[in-house]
């Protein structure tokens, strides 16, 4: 909705749009630099960029350690997605339609990893695995990501449930379907957009996660930890190259996600919902 704007209003929007330009410049400067210097023959620094080359990409494609870590990350992300959805969907249903002692504590506990610095979640789980004598491996990272990201599945699906018309489920039950059938044939299909959104978000967040993984890592690296290890040894544009490729893939994922959301309800505030949720009161 447009506001009637007086002369002063326009002036105000004048400096506001300059401010917006500056903020966008600030947000995109590192990303542009990253991509530009992935083609820079003489390394990651130095202005202007010179000796444009695809060598770093060639080097990247021949680099087995990186691709192993990418594969590990993808496996971890899928497994974490499974865990988060398997427990996050029922958790959202429980928060929506069941009453049990400790419900408030449960809700807060589920959402906590979203707002807590990753280091605390990582360390606490490290202590759990140590006390339980579990050897650190990709499996411990999966358990860590899966647990931390239940919060995402729960928030997304809970938001979906708020818009769900319960009459459909009632009708299904009245017409003789049992709970199991109603769940799979009415509840889940109605929530599919929330679930797909949650799945994409969980996948991306897991691919990028480093604070929790940092403490739960065994012998096999995930991609962010592989990059981290390389950064400590010195930096090469190979890291720019792999990051640029992943950025492009993320962009594609975002476009798909928004197409889905837009076709569903036109307007999306999903990320804002996600950010707001942990801070919401009862």
């Amino acid at each position, binding site marked *: 909705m447009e506001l009637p704007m007086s002369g002063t209003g326009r002036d105000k929007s004048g400096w506001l*749009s300059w401010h917006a330009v500056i903020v966008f410049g600030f947000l995109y400067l590192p*990303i542009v630099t990253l991509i530009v210097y992935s083609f820079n023959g003489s390394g990651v620094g130095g202005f202007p960029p010179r000796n444009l080359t695809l060598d770093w990409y060639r080097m990247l494609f021949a680099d087995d350690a990186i691709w192993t870590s990418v594969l590990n990350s993808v496996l971890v992300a899928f497994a974490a997605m499974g865990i988060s959805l398997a427990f996050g969907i029922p958790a959202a249903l*429980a928060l929506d339609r069941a009453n049990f002692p400790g419900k408030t504590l449960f809700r807060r506990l589920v959402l906590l990893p979203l707002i807590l610095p990753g280091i605390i979640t990582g360390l606490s789980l490290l*202590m759990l695995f140590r006390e339980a004598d579990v050897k650190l491996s990709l499996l411990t990272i999966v358990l860590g990501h899966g*647990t931390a990201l*239940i919060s995402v599945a729960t928030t997304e699906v809970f938001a979906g449930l708020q818009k769900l018309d319960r009459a459909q489920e009632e009708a299904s039950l009245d017409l003789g379907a049992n709970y199991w059938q109603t769940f799979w044939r009415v509840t889940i299909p109605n929530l599919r957009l929330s679930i797909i959104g949650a799945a994409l978000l969980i996948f991306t967040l897991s691919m990028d996660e480093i604070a929790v993984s940092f403490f739960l890592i065994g012998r096999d690296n995930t991609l962010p930890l592989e990059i981290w290890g390389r950064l400590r040894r010195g930096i090469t544009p190979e890291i720019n190259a792999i990051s640029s490729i*992943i950025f492009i893939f993320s962009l594609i994922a975002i476009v798909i996600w928004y197409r889905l959301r837009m076709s569903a309800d036109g307007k999306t505030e999903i990320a804002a919902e996600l950010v707001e949720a*942990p801070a919401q009161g009862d």
Partner: protein
Amino acid sequence: MFSRAYRAAITVPPLLWVAIFLLVPYALLFCYSFWSVSATQTIVHSWSLDNYRELIHVHVYLQTLFRSMWIAARVTVFSLLLGYPLAYYLSFHAGNRKDLFYQLVIIPLWVSYLVRAYAWKTILGSDGVLNTLLQYVHLTKHPLEFLLYSPFAVVLTLTHIYTPFAFLPIYASLEHIPRNLVEASHDLGASPFQTFWRVIFPLSIPGVLAGATFAFVLSLGDFLAPLLLGGPSGIMISNIVVSLFGAAYNWPLGAAISLCMLLLVLGLLFLSESLEKKWSFR
């Protein structure tokens, strides 16, 4: 309409998972903080307050905690200064480009946090992009050394990372303001500034609080940006925890620091939640 069995089926599995992988680990963090390490580097399960005494008596811990809070406070202020006017511009002046700009704020969130921190390192280094650019246009003769390995670099990078997090809830709260309130204020003769200050800003306070909480809490617990860009003067409290869990091998002391951080964070969440309720007009 939902049977007991149904409610049990949606409640018990997530409850159990959350108990095992969140509640128990946080409880372990609490327990560890009262234990100690023997000379042979095993964890001694005897209870004492020694770790907490050490935290109070060895100045470096409190000093680093205060430095971290100071860094986090600056990140919060800068994120709000960048995020609020941007959110305001999008919500009230961007017209039909609103959705596009909204996506533009979100997209950087999909580039790995680690990679963006690394990109800043390649920009700020002494032979980095910025320094060579400044020398290229003859603004400086020698590289500016304070750019990298300083608290400045940490604040800049964390501000970059948390500005979208500050933006999102502010934008959501601005979008929720009924536009007829703003029109009424104009019609009753308020200047644009008065309308902003007396109508719009008070209604957006819950969003500001949520954004500020996010920026402060997440940057307070960060350890990767300080490791990559902070240098000795940019060390933050989580770096100490990391080294206590690594080479220094004193998990109990690390747990005590983490527990203090956890309590600080929970206190802030509680505070911001009650302030939000107070300012919430819905």
